[in-house]
């Protein structure tokens, strides 16, 4: 019986092993990513940012990777086809989850190690370059290497445990834990701007001496959480995993029998019905209690953010800008994963078999996604408006110039919505890459680049000057030029998407696995 936990661990580890640079091809991917991050850091993070800040960015990245990977892992287990096999292994359930967590931590150590090496190389190159106002002392560099190394090492188990705690929060009163978990998961993102500050007060907290202290605290917390989460998940999560029915999370919570034909489902004919079908997915999603809890949290966050941040015109516009940025990032991300998800879940054949042109299918999907996001964002905007009104509302209105700022708002809305729609269309063209491998190399940067688009916008089309004193003729002119370029491009990608969307069923996870297996056998 002694051997079983090891075999279990080996089994779990196998699922990650494929990601390691063990053969030439994946070695190339790793090296390319590694060099790209290093180059990006050297280009974008110049003297204005201290070496410690860069290490802190690294720490945040490690926290995000470990935290979100384990969150997604614990979401995926519920729908995993192997789940029931896994649950019926004749070992204590605590051992099952322990093996899973350990394998995850081991994988994250590989990525954390790589990030640490990038940070070290970055420090070394900057020290060797010798440029900048202050030379970087060797002992400071060495201290940073060791201190942040310890911090990275402590963050990995800490964030992994936080992520896996989700396994116990799927049902019952434990769903209320989702609220603190939501906020804790957002902490790394929110601390980005904090650690990038050059202020002396902040930098003092990033020095090696203090970071050693953080590492110690994080490690102690991680050890504590490791025990607590393991017990928590073994006690609640595993039993619920055993009861769970895949594909019917909500069905389970409502006893599988929905309200008989819901009358609020309005169905038209033709395209309207197609739209209703797509909207039903989002309606269902937003009817889940878990989602409702999280949405209320997000609204509270938006309200609180506005309450504290919005003083006058500029901070108010900044807030609106942040919310608009979501429109660029969220709908394209959803659209690009939705079709793939459907294909993986074997839902796509029914969809493709509907007697409509492929273009109608894509347009209905796009319209429903956008409508849902706009509705959800509307709620957040309302919450932010209430928050702002409670405190600085009067001030904001007093400093708001309707002619100038109204125009600015209109410009911002046109810019971000236009951009969001363009990117959505661009991503539809992704199915063409199933036909031509080379196209993948065009789409990979686009997909990862979405998240940087808003930053670029800030630089080129909506600079600080414009935010301060409004937009002029030149801005509109540039927007027109951008539209003239983007619109045909979007149309072409939409056509390409409609032309090749039928290749999705051949590019599912399952098909991918089968292909890899047959390649290995050959």
């Amino acid at each position, binding site marked *: 019986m002694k051997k079983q936990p090891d075999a279990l661990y080996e089994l779990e580890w196998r699922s990650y092993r494929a990601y390691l640079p063990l053969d030439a091809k994946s070695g190339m991917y790793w090296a390319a990513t590694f060099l790209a991050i290093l180059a990006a850091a050297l280009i974008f993070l110049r003297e204005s940012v201290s070496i410690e800040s860069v290490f802190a960015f690294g720490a945040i990245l490690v926290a995000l990777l470990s935290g979100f990977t384990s969150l997604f892992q614990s979401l995926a287990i519920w729908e995993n086809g192997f789940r029931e096999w896994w649950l019926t292994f004749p070992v204590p359930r605590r051992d099952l989850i322990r093996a899973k967590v350990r394998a995850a931590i081991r994988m994250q150590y590989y990525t954390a190690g790589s990030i640490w090496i990038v940070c070290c190389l970055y420090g070394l190159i900057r020290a060797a370059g010798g440029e900048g106002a202050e030379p970087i002392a060797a002992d400071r560099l060495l201290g940073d290497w060791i201190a942040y190394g310890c911090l990275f090492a402590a963050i990995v188990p800490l964030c992994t445990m936080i992520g896996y705690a989700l396994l116990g929060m799927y049902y019952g009163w434990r769903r209320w834990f989702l609220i603190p978990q939501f906020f804790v998961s957002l902490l790394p993102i929110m601390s980005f701007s904090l650690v990038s500050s050059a202020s002396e007060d902040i930098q003092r907290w990033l020095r090696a001496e203090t970071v050693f202290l953080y590492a110690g605290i994080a490690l102690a917390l991680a050890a504590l959480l490791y025990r607590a989460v393991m017990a928590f998940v073994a006690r609640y999560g595993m039993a619920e995993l055993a009861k769970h*029915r895949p*594909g*019917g*999370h*909500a*069905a*389970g919570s*409502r006893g*599988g*029998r*929905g*309200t*008989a*034909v*819901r009358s609020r*489902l309005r*169905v*038209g*004919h*033709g*395209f*309207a*019905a*197609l739209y*209703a*079908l797509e909207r*039903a*997915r989002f309606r*269902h*999603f937003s009817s889940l209690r878990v989602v409702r809890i999280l949405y209320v949290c997000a609204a509270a966050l938006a309200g609180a953010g506005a309450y504290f941040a919005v003083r006058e015109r500029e901070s108010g516009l900044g807030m609106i800008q942040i919310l608009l940025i979501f429109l660029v990032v969220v709908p394209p991300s959803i659209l690009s994963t939705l079709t793939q998800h459907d294909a993986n*879940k*074997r*839902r796509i*054949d*029914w969809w*493709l*078999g*509907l*007697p*409509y*042109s*492929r273009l*109608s299918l894509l347009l209905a999907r796009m319209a429903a996604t956008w409508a849902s996001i706009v509705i959800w964002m509307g709620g957040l905007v309302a919450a932010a408006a209430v928050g702002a009104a409670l405190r600085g509302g009067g001030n904001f209105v007093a400093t708001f110039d309707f002619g100038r700022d109204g125009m600015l708002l209109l410009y911002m809305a046109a810019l971000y919505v236009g951009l969001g729609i363009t990117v959505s269309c661009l991503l539809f063209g992704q199915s063409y890459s199933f036909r031509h491998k080379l196209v993948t190399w065009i789409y990979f940067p686009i997909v990862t680049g979405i998240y940087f688009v808003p930053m670029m916008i800030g630089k080129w089309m909506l600079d600080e000057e414009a935010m301060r004193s409004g937009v002029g003729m030149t801005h509109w002119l540039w927007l027109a030029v951008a539209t003239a370029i983007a619109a045909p491009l979007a149309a072409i990608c939409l056509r390409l998407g409609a032309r090749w969307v*039928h*290749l999705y*069923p*051949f590019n599912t996870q399952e098909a991918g696995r089968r*292909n890899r297996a*047959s390649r290995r056998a050959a």
Partner: protein
Amino acid sequence: MSNIAKPTQEGSAAKAPAIRCRDVGMTLKKKSILANVTFEVEAGSLTGLLGPNGAGKSTLMRILTGLVPPESGTVELFGAPAGPERLGVLSFLPDRGQLPPYLTAGEWLQLAAGLYPDWSRAAERDLSGKLGVDPAQRIGAMSRGEEARLQLLTCLSRQAPLTVLDEPFTGVDLVSRERIASAVVGEMADGERTFLIATHDIREMEQLFDRIVLVGDGTIRGSHLVEDLRRSGRSVESCYREVFA
């Protein structure tokens, strides 16, 4: 959206076979899936597409229905080329396909009535009873047999002249299988509809077939009228064994 061929136009296309498949070939990731596939399905018949796992049946089904264009060869439905714009003339049940799990059966049927221009509410009511579909049940909470019956109900409630079923019995219990088979027979009795069914359940279905087409390793390994087989003292099952065992 407007490019949906009306089923009634197809009926007038005199005596063209429901499916005519000529020299169809398909290669995926440098692996040949189908090669030189040629066969016909007569209008008004019930044809079985039989073959072992991995023979290329599902890929062939996707090509016949026009979901996927073949790399070589042609497919015609009632005398006109297959393709996404011809989806109106056929009703397709994909292999192990799933309906949206977040809907109840009733919600799905309501949506389907709007989605398919050839939907018949009368057929839906009639078949709901025969197939035993509970409209209040959420699809995500259904057993495989229940979902399979709902999917078949969706296919048969349409008036499309051609129905293509890819493995309608996978993971389906005996009673559901019998109900499905009975429903298929009941729907084709007027001779207006053509069925093409890919299945492993030869014993369940062999009494239903007019013709069988055997597919193995991506090619046609035989096409027989079932009555001819029986006259020579063979059953569908023994013929299948001869070819594939």
